[in-house]
């Protein structure tokens, strides 16, 4: 569990920098219109209830991290094409995804060992590869804005 907490703390500590790096790399007017363009208004984002039981929280965390991990994969892929020279952003995205993969594994392990939950149904964000560039930018920014907001709640919940 401490591994999970540490990883959550790590994610929480780096989420804001990742968010800033992302919207800065997208160019104007993203940095000056973060509220409008990057507002955390994603409808399909997995819910998380901080006052639930540990099992519930772990299940929800698993869903959320699975969703985030897949979405960040899309964002990383899109940014490699869109911003091939934004190496700092790529690095942050990759680091975040690495932590999430580890977190996902640890959460599933915890669920399995303690609560004997071997499978959790997850949802993923739609693929963005067919979307236009502005939509990719905007969805990525909204995702990271939501992630920054949610991860602080999750980190405090454990």
């Amino acid at each position, binding site marked *: 569990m401490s591994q999970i907490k540490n990883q959550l703390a790590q994610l929480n500590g780096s989420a804001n920098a990742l968010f800033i790096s992302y919207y800065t790399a997208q160019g104007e007017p993203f940095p000056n219109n973060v509220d*409008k363009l990057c507002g955390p208004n994603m409808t399909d984002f997995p819910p998380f209830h901080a006052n639930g039981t540990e099992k519930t929280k772990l299940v929800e965390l698993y869903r959320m991290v699975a969703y985030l991990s897949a979405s960040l994969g899309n964002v990383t892929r899109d940014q490699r094409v869109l911003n091939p020279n934004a190496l700092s952003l790529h690095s942050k995205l990759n680091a975040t995804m690495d932590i999430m993969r580890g977190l996902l594994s640890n959460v599933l392990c915890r669920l399995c060992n303690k609560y004997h939950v071997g499978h959790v149904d997850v949802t993923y964000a739609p693929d963005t590869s067919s979307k236009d560039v502005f939509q990719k*930018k905007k969805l990525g920014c909204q995702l990271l804005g939501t992630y920054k907001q949610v991860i602080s709640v999750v980190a405090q919940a454990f």
Partner: protein
Amino acid sequence: MGVYLRWKQPSWMVDSIRMRMTSHLPWLLSALTLLHLTVQAHSLKRGTIQDLKCTTKNMLVWDCTWTPPVGVSPATVKEVCIKDRLHSCHRLESTNIKIAALSPGDHEVTINYLNGFQSKFTLNEKDVSLIPDTPASLSLSADLSSSTLHLRWNDKGSAFPYPSNATWEIKVLQNPSMEPVKLVSFNTTLNGQDTVHHWDWASELPLQCATYSVGIRWYIDYHRFSGYKVWSDWSLLKNISWTPNSETNVFPQDKVILAGSDITFCCISQTKVLSGQIGKTFCPLIHLYGENVAIRIQNISVSENSGTNVVFTTEDNVYGTVVFAGYPPDVPQKLNCETHDFKEVICSWNPGRPTGLVGPRNTDYTLSESISGKSVTFKRFETLTNESYRLAFQMLPGQEIHNFTLTGRNPLGHAESAVFINITERVAPHVPVSLRVKDINSTVVSLAWHLPGNFAKINLLCEIEICKASSEQEVRNATVKGAQESSYLVAVDKLTPYTLYTFRVRCSTETFWKWSKWSNEKRHLTTEAIPSRGPDTWREWSSDGKNLIIYWKPLPINEANGKILSYNISCTSNEETQSLSEILDPQHKAEIQLERNDYIISVVAKNSAGSSPPSKIASTEIPNDDIIVEQAVGMGKSIFLSWHADPNMTCDYVIKWCNSSHSEPCLMDWIKVPSNSTETIIESDQFQPGVRYNFYLYGCTNQGYQLLRSIIGYIEELAPIVAPNFTVEDTSADSILVKWEDIPVEELRGFLRGYLFYFQKGERDTPKTRTFETGHSDIKLKNITDISQKTLRIADLQGKTSYHLVLRAYTHGGLGPEKSMFVVTKENSVGLIIAILIPVAVAVVVGVVTSILCYRKREWIKETFYPDIPNPENCKALQFQKSICEGSSALKTLEMNPCTPNNVEVLESRSIVPKIEDTEIISPVAERPGESSEADPENHVVVSYCPPIIEEEIANPSADEAGGNSQVVYIDVQSMYQPQAKPEEEQGIDPGVVAGYKPQMRLPINSAAEDTAAEDEADKTAGYRPQANVNTWNLVSPDSPRSTDSNSEIVSFGSPCSINSRQFLIPPKDEDFPKSNGGGWSFTNFFQNKPND
């Protein structure tokens, strides 16, 4: 538009009318009237057709229609006949006929009706209108990404004679207003075949922002058709349609455009759009229709990597798009193709101006080789540095000639560059690897290296760089025959034994293009060889002359040819050869005990390869008594020595040197100079400035060395570091003798060039004399250039005066420190004597002269100053002759005439310094206590002096005269002069008598003790007595302050004065004469002239 057939008037009829009208106008009018009536009648018979109209679509068939004459039904048409034509009549039951095109020219056409009427007219091609069929477009499509409409249609050219020119007109209408936004026309040629044409139109406004309709029409211009050409009708409008994406509201999306161009973005919105911006810049909204708006961007700048964002803000959402503005690829520059190994060709280039586009919009490069027909593609998302643009093209075996074309392509365009090469001339081999070195002997090694690649058909040119440890560098070339994936071997000779070398190799081809990079360095130490010569040798006899010390220098590495292990020293005399033990290497000196015989000393250096040739030196030194020690000064760290050539010197010259302060045997180093040289420059790191060195030049003869010259010198002279130690040997009133000592050589630091001696008046610790100020006029300087001089006498000084002496030594290096001393000259005794003797002599002379004058004028003096005082006892006035008194009645009595006394007030002395307050004179008698009982309580004694009044009887006329002229009045006599005690004989005198006359007497100086002595001398002072002791006179001048402070009337004088004069009879001393105040005045000063003395 149309051409209508009409009845054609016979030409002859018209002409005849014209002819008649001109000459017979009245007749003409009558004829016209008649004609009209005739025609009317004829028309009624034949019938008249109206609105004849003939058109054609393809110039092959004419379609004519007409309106039948009035009163005739169109159904009554029976036939239409055309003259001069086969099957000239066509049965017909309408007023429309399609006939094959008639040949050019007029054709008479007759229309027969069932009712017998007949109409005739002339038909010509010129009257026919060519109206092609309405074009039918095959398709209308739209490229939304490029906002382009594509229109395709078929010209159906097979239906027309060809070649014909077709002119097309296309119109684009923007909905819903149906305003034409584009109308273009262009020409094509009909070639007898059905041809599909297309027309593309790029809309400034994205096609998604509105709906568009397109129509087309045309007309045909056939040069053989003389009729009218008329536009066809517009085709049916074709509309473009697209399915809107619910997420996409801003158009165009992800467009790539040329930087600097203009672009319009539109936003399709159901709600009101509040603003539109590109990047941070807000733009004015252009209303389209509904809530749709657009913004127009002009001269767009190059985008960032992620594109330029265009954002529209509505009341409830934010929509946007991204535009990528950049440039098409620049022409690839510096395209260069070469091979490293004959396996692949590497082409590199400079992309030129950046496109500003990255990722999928980045420039793709394709390298095509036209001979082989192969190509490779370069595609990367990232923006690379110029050096990274390179492509590898796999070579085909045997193909040497290559024609490469490099094409860069991005969404905005493409550019290409080409190069034609023979690959054998463009070889830049890989870096040689696996460099190995192997010894062959001490001066030859073999080098081997591997060069990857297939160079079988060419020769390789390689450079071998040889570096010694001393950084000496040499490059040698070697040509080797190329091979496939092979190693290459080269022998490198002319090396130095026992030397550390660094080798490295690079290669090219004989048809030079580029060198490969240098291989890694390989260090190698060559093997040893015997030393090439014996060591440089010298010998010195020890100070006691019993031992011979042999010195030798270590061989330089290039002559040692290895590590010197030891030295063998041997001595050879006429009788024997004495071999000494081996001296191991670090030691380069050996001392052997020899008698002073002639020996030949031999020194041999040994290394692992063998022994060097012996180096020999004779022990004998040929004496030379004619040696003069010379001086020399060097330059920097070297010293130049030259000498005259001596033919007797057959071998060489040796110059040895040592520090002069070192003890014998003195040897720092030596050098050997060839015998044909007469000069040399000696350099040594051991040389130090300011140090004296001895240089000895030896010449070598067959018998031994002979000292030729002895030189002392400095590499650089410095100033002495100490001052000469000097003392004062002798001092007189006007001179000082100074003596100094030599400065030690170590402290002199140069050749002594002289001394500077300064002196000036001054005493120790006075600021003036602490230092010698430059240019001070009082400083006297003596430059002593005779360095053998050790004393100096400074003359013309002033006696009893302190002098500041300073002595400094100097060399060419500068002045040394100073040493100073203060000396006081002695007093001048002659002057002192003179100063004493002269006043004494003057005083004696004055005394003698005064005595002589007094003696000669003694009478005058006596009469003037000491007139005889008549004895009262001898005064006849007081003598009472008994005879007279007793016997004569006529005796007269002393008649006491009234006597007017002169009052003399004597002031009492109250202090040693008298203060005169009034004119009273204190009587000395009154001061006596016993005698003062009757005195005035105020001690005032009024001396009543009554001059003797002798009436008519003057016993002694001379005395009278004298008495009349000798009225001495004592006035204002200071009370300090106390009167002496009265003589004994006067003590019995009645006070009244005393009061009558008061003789002059010496006044004591207020000392009671002296009273006794004064009484002893009373007898002597009983008579007239000169005025009191002059020593007690106050030497205050009349105009002294005291005098001026006093009342002039009561001023007391220290000298008596006559009644006629108040001047001192003995004049006071000169006021200018300096008082003896004991303040340092001396006779010596009396003789000093200078102010500062």
